[in-house]
């Protein structure tokens, strides 16, 4: 009789063991979720969007798998636990990749910013040397307005950089750099052509019909005439 009771108890214990052998790996879930939040804070969605989406998708799959196991009579969380380990590692990698990419973009903004500032300075100096033939000065005036707009754009990029939005800052400073370089090339070409031909570039060719030999220029300037109505 005693044996029968013992056997019955053993059977019940076995059923109970089988039905409750799996426990939700909550600690690992929490750790992985925390790693995903950290990746989000590191702006992974901006700097490594595809990898970050993959991590989020993997976590979604795990969450669903947990519920699947919870719905079973005999739960088995072993494979989920392994998947959580992999996802946690991936989330951590994504966070560090995002930080590295952010740093890279930040450096690129800094480099481009330094370069564009140097180009602006160079352009200012080149403008003084640029030919002022027919319409040359007018073209330079237009260039000055463009340069002012470039400087304003650089200032906006700096503000974005200070706010930490490096990607937007990079787009802005790159556009400013492209424009400044364009002006730089134009100015250098104009100066170079003048050196080569002894003629202004921004200024088109002189008249077809040439003037007759001019009379000698007076040595001294005449006295200024009083202000006149115009």
């Amino acid at each position, binding site marked *: 009789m005693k044996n029968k009771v013992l056997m019955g108890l053993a059977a019940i214990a076995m059923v109970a063991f089988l039905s409750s052998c799996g426990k939700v790996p909550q600690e690992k879930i929490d750790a992985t979720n925390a790693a995903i939040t950290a990746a989000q804070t590191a702006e992974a969605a901006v700097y490594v969007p595809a990898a970050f989406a993959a991590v989020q998708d993997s976590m979604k799959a795990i969450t669903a798998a947990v519920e699947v196991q919870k719905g079973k009579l005999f739960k088995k969380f072993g494979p989920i636990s392994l998947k959580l380990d992999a996802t946690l590692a991936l989330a951590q990698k994504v966070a560090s990749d995002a930080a590295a990419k952010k740093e890279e973009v930040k450096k690129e903004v800094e480099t481009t910013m330094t370069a564009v500032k140097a180009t602006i300075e160079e352009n200012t100096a080149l403008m003084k040397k640029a030919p002022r033939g027919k319409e040359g000065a007018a073209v330079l005036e237009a260039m000055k307005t463009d340069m002012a707009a470039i400087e304003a754009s650089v200032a906006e990029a700096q503000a974005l950089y200070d706010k930490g939005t490096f990607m937007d800052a990079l787009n802005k400073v790159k556009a400013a750099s492209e*424009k400044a370089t364009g002006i730089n090339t134009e100015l250098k070409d104009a100066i170079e052509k003048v050196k080569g031909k002894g003629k202004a570039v921004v200024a088109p060719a002189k008249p077809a019909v040439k003037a007759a030999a001019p009379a000698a220029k007076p040595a001294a300037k005449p006295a200024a005439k009083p202000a006149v109505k115009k």
Partner: protein
Amino acid sequence: MRKVWRGVLIFSALAVSISLIVLLLIRFTPKPPSGEMEHAREILSEAEKSKADTYSKKLYTEAKVFYDSAMVNWRKENKRFIYFRHYEKVRMFADLSAKKAILAMDNSISTLSDLKIKLKQKIESLRYLVSQLDDLFNTYPLTSEIRNRISKGKILFTESEIVYNKGQYFQANRKLTDAEYLLTESYEYASANLKDYFKSYSVWKRWVERTLTDSKKNRDYSIIIDKFSRKFFIYLGGTKKYEFEAELGKNWVGDKRTRGDMATPEGMYKITKKFDGGSTKYYKALLLDYPNEEDKARFRSEIERGSLPRTARIGGLIEIHGNGGKGVDWTEGCIALTDREMDVVFKIVKVGTPVTIIGSMVDLKEVVDK
């Protein structure tokens, strides 16, 4: 021995019964909606890859909300006793999520494709607009506000191209719209200004014809100044003899209206006086009979109409003078030549030589085509 066999038999019967019970328990356990949920999740993931979160935000968000609702309900059901769980609601939400995600994905793909085409066209049309602005108005006297808008618009345009090439189409669209606004508005303003400038073309044409006919008839020198091309022509007996580059008033567009408006007048004038030596600060100068009777009548009519204030004064002392060659329109309304060119002009003209100042020798269409 018999007792042992009996024990084994009882144990076996018990084990079989337990196994049967367990099998029955498993058989009647409600089936979790794992397949439906997996399908919904996969479609959502595909939709995200198709950038539905950006280009079909509303549908994608709805799909996500349905998925989250399915998860919430699933968790809720899983908390109940195993045989009391009902997953119909979970399945329904999962199904709705998948359907919405498919819609979001399709919508995103078509939106993205349309947007790409639209942006490409916008970029091309803005590129053309920028080239038109550069070709027609680079040296045209526009207000500093319009100049600033053009420069800002050009930078925004470059920025939008950079963003477009990175595949950030929404951002590119925003920037392009801003650039388009600045550039189109400036172009329209400048074009209207230019069109307005050319509205007197038929009058200018008549003046030129009269000047050339007179030059031919009198076999004498005549001067024609084309403000738009900044050309200074000298004709003898109706034939062009000299062509110089002229510099005009800072605000040369349009006819001169009042004193101090920095505009170069348009009309048929004559040289009334010649200055050289110490009598002019501009090397040599030829005074014109501006304002003539026509200018005075127009000025009076503008005052009467109220388009000019009663305090406005008519300008005067418009000259052709030296000190030019600066490469910019810098005078207060006069016409400046280089000193060398001034020597030539000064030598051949006399008091009474006709000087016709016109807006342009060619019409607007020809200017634009050029």
